[in-house]
């Protein structure tokens, strides 16, 4: 009898996981196939949502929230911080150089390629990392990676990429693939006292209510970062949101600039490939 129950339970598990975009079968990782399965899942789940609209998160899937958001966007709450970010970005360092000198195209319209894999160091480099690396090369102190000036500068750089489509590449390098796989595994792994994975909410319950909120679909989840979050009252980076998300499922969060969050950002942004960059955004 017990064996039968176990078998039924196993079947039920299969049925549950079968509904979600299945993590690639064991063996060689295939990001391109994952990408297609991931995006197709959301296109089928939300047939009425135009593809490009997924970048608007909860506003794409809920009419009431969208109406409120459109009102809010008459005066985007991040407007002041975006202006500060532009000023900071253009301010020269003590050695006379500026942020623009660290990036291709003077840092304008390049955010859609981040995070990218640096073959030299074997690390995933996010936009936030690149900004801090730029500061270090020019003899300045690192900035806090979650909020404040860092979020403002990143917001400005992202805003110059508006309308360009995410173009994150995963080179055929075992280290890049390992980072991608680590991010993917993190996304689908349950954690915390509530035993939720990122996917439990953002894939299986996307568009449904979580108390008063609407859960944003995982597709387009990172397309609007950095975001002005009402709960924060200011602008913050993706790392800051990851920390908060992990704390909300009552897990011990990692540092906002930890390797695992970089990998997660790499995975999630790759999944948004083809969507337009819309950051900075605003979320409840």
């Amino acid at each position, binding site marked *: 009898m017990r064996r039968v129950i176990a078998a039924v339970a196993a079947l039920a598990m299969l049925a549950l996981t079968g509904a979600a975009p299945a993590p690639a079968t064991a063996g060689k990782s295939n990001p391109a196939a994952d990408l297609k399965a991931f995006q197709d899942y959301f296109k089928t789940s939300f047939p009425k949502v135009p593809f490009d609209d997924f970048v608007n998160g909860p506003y794409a899937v809920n009419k009431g929230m969208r109406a409120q958001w459109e009102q809010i966007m*008459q*005066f985007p*709450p991040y*407007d*002041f911080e975006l*202006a500060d970010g532009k000023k900071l970005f253009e301010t020269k360092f003590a050695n006379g150089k500026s942020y623009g000198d660290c990036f291709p195209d003077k840092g304008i319209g390049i955010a859609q390629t981040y995070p990218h894999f640096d073959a030299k160091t074997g690390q995933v480099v996010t936009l936030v990392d690149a900004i801090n690396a730029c500061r270090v090369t020019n003899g300045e102190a690192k900035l806090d990676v979650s909020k404040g000036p860092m979020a403002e500068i990143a917001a400005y750089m992202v805003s110059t990429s508006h309308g360009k489509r995410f173009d994150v590449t995963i080179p055929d390098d075992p280290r890049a693939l390992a980072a991608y796989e680590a991010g993917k595994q993190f996304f689908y792994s349950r954690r915390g006292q509530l035993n939720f994975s990122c996917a439990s909410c953002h894939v299986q319950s996307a568009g449904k209510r979580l108390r008063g909120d609407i859960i944003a679909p995982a597709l387009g989840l990172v397309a609007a970062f950095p975001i002005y979050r009402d709960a924060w*009252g200011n602008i913050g980076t993706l790392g800051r949101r990851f920390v908060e998300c992990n704390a909300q499922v009552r897990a011990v969060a990692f540092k906002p600039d930890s390797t695992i969050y970089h990998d997660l950002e790499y995975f999630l942004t790759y999944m948004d490939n083809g969507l337009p960059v819309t950051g900075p955004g605003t979320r409840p």
Partner: protein
Amino acid sequence: MAHTIRVRAIANGDTVQVQSLIQHPMDSGFVKDSAGKLIPPHYIEVVTFAAGNKTVFTAFWGPAVSKDPYLKFSFKGAKKGDTLTISWVDNKGMHDSTTAPIM
């Protein structure tokens, strides 16, 4: 420094609809910082909107108004192309003003 005020005034028929956003901490004086010290009160006391030389809207604000206040109102008696002047003064004597054309 007209940096703290965002404004949009749109004429529609004989009414003008004004929306504005002002950047200000609006500290009530009752909130403590992370070290447990009271943050001293710092809030806007008067906001004035004038069309041409005529004041069309005055608000007396206090500590109960939110951070970065948003304000929306309509008035009659101005037309497209007129200039709207917005100014605020806070309890520390800081002030700012800006002008915007009615669109």
